[in-house]
């Protein structure tokens, strides 16, 4: 196990290096003159050249990449000239809020999707099952921004149950203690995941219901409720763990839309604004975070599956 972890870590670092290189060179292709971006279209070519020289942007791109890498190793993510702030500081300010939003959405999604999927499997082909499946397809096909707008229109403007704008506090604790303001963003994030998770859980539970150990559990005289909770639940959730692992970076991307829709300042909103401002150091850092989350999410999922299912040996 320890060796497995060590090996995975080495591989992860290599993957992240690859991601950083690809993103760095792509951004360089889009904009090879940060001076022009920072100083604006009206600045003189000399001023731009001076700026680029001063910050080392006139060096060969490979050299620039390695110097960026060197800074990364020292924890320096670069500097946003547009906001005149350290990228690392910017991320720190926003990461907690984004993580909380995503996590709340994920937890809500699992709490709804796992029982729903099992219910659908138990009552397969019933009206409930067909309705849930139909709804899941509709919700899955609905873009998040549209869903968010509908939710705002109904729950905020018509029913006035929840505010249309998320809490603006930068302290996660304040946000945490003000659940009403978080309701709509979290629900918007959760709904799409529920649609995916519940269908996944349904097919996995159906698979498990056909297994012999379920019949054996019934033959013991267990009431159906215990058959489901003691025997089916854990086995039926195994595939979902892997799915959730791979979904983590997608949740981050989901934030992009939800955060801008509900004006919730997090990483997504920061990214969106940086995109408009052509603030490349921030974009680069954001993409790297996506890479880290992908790698970490898969890693955690693999470990979690191995812990839940002893048949799986984490071999090299």
């Amino acid at each position, binding site marked *: 196990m320890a060796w497995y972890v060590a*090996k995975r870590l080495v591989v992860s670092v290599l993957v992240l290096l690859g991601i950083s290189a690809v993103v760095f060179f792509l951004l360089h292709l889009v904009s090879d003159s940060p001076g022009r971006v920072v100083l604006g279209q009206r600045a003189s070519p000399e001023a731009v050249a001076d700026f680029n020289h001063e910050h080392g942007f006139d060096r060969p791109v490979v050299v620039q990449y390695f110097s960026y890498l060197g800074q990364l190793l020292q924890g320096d993510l670069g500097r946003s000239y547009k906001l005149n702030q350290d990228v690392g500081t910017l991320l720190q300010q926003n990461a907690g809020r984004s993580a909380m939003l995503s996590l709340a959405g994920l937890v809500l999604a699992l709490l709804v999707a796992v029982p729903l999927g099992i219910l659908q499997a138990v009552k397969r082909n019933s009206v409930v099952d067909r309705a849930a499946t139909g709804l899941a397809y509709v919700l899955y096909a609905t873009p998040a921004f549209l869903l968010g707008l509908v939710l705002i229109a109904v729950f905020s403007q018509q029913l006035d149950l929840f505010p249309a704008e998320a809490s603006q506090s930068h302290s996660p604790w304040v946000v945490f203690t003000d659940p009403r303001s978080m309701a709509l963003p979290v629900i918007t994030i959760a709904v799409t995941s529920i649609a995916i998770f519940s269908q996944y859980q349904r097919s996995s539970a159906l698979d498990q219901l056909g297994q012999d150990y379920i019949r054996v559990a019934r033959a*013991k005289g267990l009431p159906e409720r215990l058959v489901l909770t003691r025997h089916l639940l854990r*086995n039926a959730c*195994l595939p979902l763990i892997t799915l959730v692992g791979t979904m983590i970076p997608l949740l981050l991307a989901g934030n992009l839309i939800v955060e801008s829709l509900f004006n919730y300042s997090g990483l997504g909103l920061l990214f969106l604004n940086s995109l408009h401002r052509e603030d490349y150091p921030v974009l680069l850092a954001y993409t790297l975070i996506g890479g880290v989350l992908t790698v970490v999410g898969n890693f955690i999922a693999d470990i979690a599956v191995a812990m839940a299912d002893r048949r799986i040996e984490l071999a090299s």
Partner: protein
Amino acid sequence: MIPQPAVATDRVLSVRDLAVEIRRGERLVRPVSGVSLDLHRGETLGIVGETGSGKSMTGLAIMGMLPSGGRVTQGSIDFGGTELVGLDPATYRGIRGNDIAMVFQDSLTALNPTRRIGDQVAEPARLHLGLSRRAARRRAEEVLALVGIPRPGERMDDHPHQLSGGMRQRVMIAMALVCEPKVVIADEPTTALDVTIQAEILDLLDDLRSRLGMAMILVTHDMGVIARHADRVGVMYAGRLAETGPTADLFERTRHRYTQALLASIPSLTHDRGEELYSIGGAPPDLSAAQPGCRFAPRCAAATDECRTEQPPVVAEGAHAYSCWHPASGPVRHTAVRIAERPRPAAVTETGPRLSVVDLHREYPAGHGSWFGPRRTVKAVSGVSFEVAAGETFGLVGESGCGKSSLGRMLVALDRPTAGEVVFEGRSVTTMRPRELGPHRARLQMMFQDSSAALDPRMRIGAVLREPLAIQGIGTRAERTATARDLLADVGLPATVLERFPHELSGGQRQRVALARALALDPTVLVADEPVSALDVSIRSQVLNLMRRIQRERGLSSVVISHDLAVVRYLADRVGVMYLGKLVETGTAEEVYAAPAHPYTAGLLAAVPEASPTGQAPRAERVRGELPSPLDPPSGCRFRTRCPLATEVCAEVEPALEDVTATHQVACHFPLQNKSGGA
């Protein structure tokens, strides 16, 4: 051992005129119609039948666990004064797993893969006996010891995948016995297990039944298991009980025509190989269609108009009862058909063997024990050599994990050996490049066990049969279709099958197609891996006879791989017995079966239950214990860990194959027959 007649004092279970129907979409199937049976304290009632006979459904109906869409439509199930049909679910749950328990067929998923076995065994005790977690665990440990799990305390926290198949089945039995039920229904309890393990599990069930005074219903397709372990037998066919009676009586004074035909279709270890197996034509009826008269009538040689129109009444002769208009009197003694003498296989020295295997090894990587630990390997095949002459059939027998299937794949160049070579018609196919191999491959064909997986589900049978011809560029499309039609005729299928998809055929028909496909390129060597293991007895004998005929007519050399000793004996001229990657004994079929020289062969033969209640005296000590890991096989003789004769020399010196007679070799320091050569 002949089972002692049951002390039929009190009746614990009584089923009267039970009928079950299952609705599957638009189709209404009636798997059980009008079954009546009694079960007495301390006895084993065997229910025997083929797939779809309703034997398992009868068991599930008693448990109140019919599949969804299923219900009991008539009759009663009386359990010690309680009527189970229509019982409210909560009361039924109190009986299920408590007073009536069930042991299912071992499968990898029969135990919950993510829960510890101790908890799984303790679960019914907590549920029904109201024991505390602690007390239930203690009870579970007791029962695990009772079913022969060594050091049960240490095994309690294991997960199912850490146990072997035999151990898992013991855990399953422990789960059923933990509440000391009055009735145990064992549904094919040993079907997935090897013959040596099967013998142990069945003996265990017998022993527990008599010690705990339970009554047992043993549901099985295997007449041999019935003969050895049941006090009374019920033979089911197409949802009806054809015949019931005390075991010895039923085997010796068989009355129903189906029972008689079924018994005659089973290849036995003492069958005269010159005699064709009796076989029942046709296939069991479709249970969704109403059918008047005797359900066996369409396949019965003795059927008359009366049989086809009127359901035969139950005739009782003492304890023996049957439903047949034209009862037989006893088993079939001889089948009329003798197999034409096949030309004797050309002596190896004259033409050279058609296929020879030289010191073949195959190891599979199994990952590392630790990062820097040595790479571990599964030693699947470790130095096997044999030769197959033109027109000869070589049988490979052994239990699961002995390497026989790995060997089979290498014989037809589907897999490459780690060392050694396969020489086919004088040329080594092992060292050939893929391009060179092509034309040779055509003449080396293989037939697999699971015909539903071995045939592409999206290809019509015509396309399946034309494909090998097309790949080898033989003939035009029309010619290929003509060849396909001839092939089907050869394996006894009508030309209409060409347009069918595999799922539209029965298992027996699919296996015939698989044989036809293997024959399409007119091979000289056919390797058949468990060719009839997935088939029911009555269908099996049809396919076995077909294979014998094809072998004879085409002068094929074949290698038949099977765990079933009787099947190998029926098909093969010479036999090789494998154990843990090694050939431990080879010889002509007559020699090996009549006078086994290796203790393992003798033990295997002793473990096979014969479909006759007499003559069951074990000829040799049975093989006990579990197969060692092929990751780390025992030193010296690999069988020594389970051998009753093993001494120190067996651990130190690996025995080589030595002559017992000119045609019979054994690798053993203490063979049961005198070696002719050597000391």
